[in-house]
């Protein structure tokens, strides 16, 4: 019984590891521009599903790991993750009631906030610029949510993760 519980507690971390790997996957340049924010979207799901387990602390740690993985300035992704998680935690009860397309719209805005924060903080003292293309992952992450939500809910129910 104890073994069983310990095993299932690890399930969210396996999904997050998969998200990290998808983030680090080498892609052609044109795909990179629209590549969804896998870690953020998966984490948003777990915050909505298990808010007593996943909160700002984990957001901070995962954000730091993302910074290390992507070679950003330390703390940039961490800040973005913490801000987005805070908003998610404020409205997770409402989000659970929403239809999935309504959730997708919310995810769109959350990822857009994430993109603005990372783009702005990473962009200080840098020459890179791209117009508004840095926002492209937001709508794509929103669309991804429709599918990912079903998959992650399936995983959560199958393994009875609490």
């Amino acid at each position, binding site marked *: 019984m104890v073994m069983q519980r310990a095993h299932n507690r690890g399930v969210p971390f396996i999904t997050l590891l998969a998200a990290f*790997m998808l983030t680090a996957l080498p892609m052609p340049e044109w795909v990179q521009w629209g590549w969804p924010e896998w870690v953020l979207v998966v984490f948003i799901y777990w915050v909505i599903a298990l808010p007593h387990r996943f909160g*700002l602390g984990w957001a*901070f740690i995962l954000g730091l790991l993302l910074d290390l993985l*992507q070679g950003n300035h330390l703390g940039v992704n*961490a*800040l973005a993750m913490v801000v987005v998680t805070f908003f998610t935690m404020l409205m997770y009860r409402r989000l659970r009631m929403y239809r999935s397309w309504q959730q997708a719209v919310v995810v769109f805005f959350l990822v857009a906030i994430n993109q603005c924060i990372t783009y702005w903080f990473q*962009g*200080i*003292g*840098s020459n890179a610029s791209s117009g508004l293309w840095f926002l492209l992952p937001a709508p794509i992450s929103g669309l991804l949510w429709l599918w990912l939500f079903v998959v992650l809910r399936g995983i959560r129910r199958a393994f009875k993760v609490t």
Partner: protein
Amino acid sequence: MFKGQSTVKKFITYGLICLSLIISDYQFDQMQRIRAWLSLAVTPVQWLVDVPQRSWTWLDERLQVRDELIAENKQLRAKTLLAERRVQKLAALTVENFRLRDLLNSSEQLDEKVTVSELVGINSDPFTHQVIINNGFNSGAFVGQPVLDATGVMGQIISTSAFTSRVLLITDADHAIPVQVNRNGLRTVAYGLGQYDYLELQDLSDTADIEVGDILVSSGLGLRFPKGYPVAQVIEVRHFTGQDFAKVWAKPTAQLDRSRHLLLIETPQQQNLAQQDGN
């Protein structure tokens, strides 16, 4: 419940921690070392992602047909022979060069240490052109070390951890490399634009002697990149009436988005510089 209250407090605390981290990362060089050790945490992810590529190479090597291998072997032998002939000539030229330098009392050193390294990851952020290689400070890589592939300069190492290093490519929007035109020695700086195919030369006067097809080699100024390695080839020169500067674009000779085997160069002066930086 008091949960709402504590969430806001936590949010503010974590937010402030993040902001101070960002600021110290911009301000202090010591963060490099902290980052080097923290990076160990994500090294497994980088290796895991590279597994399909590596296992494909492995399978490919084992499943290759005998005839193909023999043919490839012949081809490589021919190539080696050609290369050896050039090396023979080079040996004579090197000796001659040493003698001439002796005559001029020049103290420049010519020998460089080369380490072969392999690509293990590409940065997924489209705003930065960085790759990850499988040499870390455990195998002698250091920040500022130049990286080449078989055809030209790729970039330089900007951070190291124990087993991997991060290489900033010359096409990154924040990178610039001092170069000179091989034909006439004209010195200038090649800036990255954030596009894999182009470098830009912004500092050439309208009357500068530069033509389409000119090869740009590293000039060795700035003490980062060793002198004389090919960097790019000029593909477009545009003059504007009434403007003081011409606009020149060049295409990197290195295969920035394809090369998997890279060379790390180490010159004695650089090793000294790196040690000074570390202290």
